[in-house]
């Protein structure tokens, strides 16, 4: 979806050239003095309350119905005017009045809204003596921020549902000071505040249709690392923004304004990433990142926008605990790998002769990798504490006896970052034959990635597709048909090895053409599967999945049908091409008892990350009939 919206969004806010600021300032001041409050605070060409910077500061968006504006803030305490939610003008007047009242202290408007105060004073040339705001001052001193880093939590292995990623901001202290440390830096994030007892279904419903308050929280970075890197196994990408000190201060001033204020949370658009874009827009007026958002803001796409707007000065990769463990194990020799597995499983003690016979460096590396593996398994696989804790303690005690051996290097940064992978909106045009009937097929897929798309920047073997529409036009009888509507399709093929034994799984639902024996009808379906995958070299894996299918349609004898089945195949992914081939079998058991057997081969040839040529062939034995389908065409990624 990354770039596509650009074609359809038009500029919702017209921009006032910055150079006007100085010229109109005195004029506006005169207006305020002469006509307090009732004044049409207006410049020669545009009223001040419609200034893009003001609209951004109060989070106004054009109302969906009719003209006017509505603020996305859902908290009366965020407004100084009672009609502030829908009236930029009333809010501006109320703010101007409030910040010019005498007095000081935390409850004064100047202290509650330092960003508005600063902007209005500069814009209108008001006396700029600083207000005495102990609470705000203590807050900014504690945060001690020199620069701001956008942190992106990538998707994790074996969890395609995390593919959208997550973003938050890290507030970095001045770097030249040896007494500072990024683990202790604070972070700002925005998330739905769901009640702990809510089920996932309720969570999904309220998340989509509203109902959860969104809250802005400040937490130390080490807490975020624990959550994302250690527990969820997500690599973190740190994009340091090139905001200067003044812009950083202004961002924090606004963060203070929205700190405890509720903005209702919506998964698809007004989500974690959206609020952060708003903060960046405020820090650097004219950035207009929010204009990129159309129907949804996928965090990984928002990272692309931030990079496209030249906001990033450097990027740093922080591998997750899982990435580090896998890397450290893979750098051991195979005999040391065997030894590490034996220690982890309790066959060999960490202080046994076999381990002590190794050189100090080898011993250190074996113990380090084994310890990290035991910790990983304890969390990911729930190894019991009675077994894992004493083993962990013995491993560290032995390790502490080895001086002067530095731990292994961290895993290398991937050559292609997540934000450099292919864009997620895909349109495909193809032509093919179904049992000798020729067709042209057009496919729209708003998000996100399938296993045959260019793999760079994505987890291998992971697939997540949303709201995909396949439409076919049959040339022989001029018929346009909906071939398939995919609601959601998730697939995760994660290879198993001596150390890790993840489950490969898949789930999907939607509507698809199904053969009832005499015609092809569009039937709602639900499918799922679980099994294993094994690595055959670097980029190739073999998988075997037990599957289950359910289809519902009037044309089926009992109105529905179900089929256990299997899918066995190979997958190869590299930056030039991706291939999968295999055999599927399904045994339909409810409405009509029969087998459906299939062999398939599909391949994509990647032309950069913008295009792929695709071809696929399926031969099927169904209702004692053999028929072939083939198709070839082009995928384009936007």
């Amino acid at each position, binding site marked *: 979806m990354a770039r596509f919206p650009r074609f359809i969004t038009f500029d919702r806010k017209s921009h006032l050239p910055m150079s006007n600021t100085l010229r109109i300032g005195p004029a506006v001041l005169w207006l305020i003095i002469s006509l307090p409050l009732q004044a049409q605070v207006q410049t020669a060409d545009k009223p001040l309350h419609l200034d893009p910077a003001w609209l951004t500061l109060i989070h106004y968006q054009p109302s969906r119905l009719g003209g006017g504006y509505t603020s996305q803030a859902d908290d009366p305490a965020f407004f100084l005017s009672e009609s502030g939610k829908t009236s930029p003008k009333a809010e501006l007047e109320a703010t101007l009045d409030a910040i010019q009242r005498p007095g000081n202290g935390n409850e004064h408007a100047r202290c509650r809204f330092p960003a508005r105060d600063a902007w209005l004073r500069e814009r209108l040339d008001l006396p700029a003596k600083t207000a005495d705001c102990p609470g705000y001052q203590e807050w900014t001193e504690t945060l001690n921020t020199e620069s701001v880093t956008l942190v992106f939590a990538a998707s994790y292995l074996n969890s395609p549902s995390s593919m959208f990623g997550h973003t938050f901001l890290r507030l970095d202290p001045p770097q030249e000071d040896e007494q500072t440390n990024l683990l202790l830096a604070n972070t700002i994030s925005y998330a739905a505040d769901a009640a702990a007892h809510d089920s996932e279904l309720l969570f999904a419903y309220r*998340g989509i249709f509203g109902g959860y308050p969104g809250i802005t929280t400040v937490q130390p970075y080490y807490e975020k690392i624990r959550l994302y890197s250690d527990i969820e196994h997500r690599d973190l990408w740190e994009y340091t923004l090139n905001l200067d000190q003044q812009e950083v201060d202004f961002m924090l001033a606004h963060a203070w304004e929205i700190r405890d204020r509720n903005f209702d949370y919506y998964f698809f658009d007004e989500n974690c990433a959206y609020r952060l874009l708003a903060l960046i827009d405020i820090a650097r007026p004219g950035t207009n990142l929010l204009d990129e958002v159309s129907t949804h803001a996928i965090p990984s796409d928002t990272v692309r926008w931030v990079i496209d707007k030249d906001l990033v000065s450097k990027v740093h990769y922080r591998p997750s605990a899982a990435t580090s463990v896998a890397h450290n194990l893979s750098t051991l020799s195979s005999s040391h790998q065997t030894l590490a597995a034996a220690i982890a499983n309790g066959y060999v003690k960490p202080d046994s002769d076999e381990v002590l016979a190794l050189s100090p460096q080898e011993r250190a590396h074996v113990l380090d990798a084994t310890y990290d593996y035991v910790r990983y398994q304890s969390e990911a696989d729930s190894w019991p504490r009675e077994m894992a804790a*004493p083993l962990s303690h013995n491993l560290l005690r032995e*390790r502490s006896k080895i001086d002067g051996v*530095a731990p292994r290097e961290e895993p290398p940064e991937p050559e292609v970052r997540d934000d450099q992978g292919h864009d997620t909106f895909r349109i495909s045009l193809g032509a093919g034959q179904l049992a000798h009937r020729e067709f042209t097929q057009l496919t729209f897929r708003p998000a996100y990635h399938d296993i045959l798309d260019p793999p760079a920047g994505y987890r291998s073997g992971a697939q997540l597709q949303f709201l995909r529409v396949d439409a076919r036009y049959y040339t022989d009888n001029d018929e346009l048909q909906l071939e398939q509507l995919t609601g959601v399709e998730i697939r995760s093929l994660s290879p198993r090895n001596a150390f890790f034994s993840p489950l490969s799984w898949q789930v999907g639902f939607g509507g698809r053409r199904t053969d009832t024996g005499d015609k092809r009808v569009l039937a709602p379906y639900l499918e799922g599967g679980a099994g294993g995958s094994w690595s055959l070299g670097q980029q190739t894996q073999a998988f075997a999945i037990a599957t289950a299918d359910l289809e519902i349609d009037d044309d089926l004898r009992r109105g529905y049908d179900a089929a256990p089945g299997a899918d066995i195949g190979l997958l190869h992914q590299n930056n030039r091409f991706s291939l999968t081939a295999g055999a599927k079998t399904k045994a339909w058991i409810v409405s009509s008892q029969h087998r459906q057997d299939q062999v398939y081969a599909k391949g994509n040839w990647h032309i950069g990350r913008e295009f792929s040529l695709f071809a696929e062939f399926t031969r099927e034995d169904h209702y004692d009939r053999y028929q072939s389908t083939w198709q070839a065409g082009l995928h384009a990624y936007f």
Partner: protein
Amino acid sequence: MKKLIAGAILLGASSMAFAQPGCGVGAMIWKGQSGVAPHVLAATTNGTFGNQTFGMTSGTLGCQTNESVQSMAMYMDSNIDKVARDMSRGNGENLETLAVLLGVEEADRGAFRDVLQDNFAAIFPSSETTSGEAVDAIVALLEKNESLSKYVAA
């Protein structure tokens, strides 16, 4: 500057119960974490479930008067596994963070790392060690060290 950093730690941990009685308590090492399996929907949609804060227990605030040591205790409480790991290796960012929290100067960092690695078994005598006990042991060790005692003076 030291004060600011200590403040940052306290700010971040503000959800903790501050006035827990007793010394030497805190998170037990390798106690394991609940809620390991991420919710599929929460992961997709980046919501947060209320139970996503992990077993933060009380620190040793009742006992330690030195503000730096209090900050270290806070940090140890939520990162005890990783601190123990880095300590056994005499190297790592969590060990650096302890040094920063205690205000250990660059010149003393090498000695700091060595003391903690060499005395790992004293700091973590068993797999039941709590963060509070580890903090007390670290303070006792540093107090005995000529060049490092100044960082834990009450």
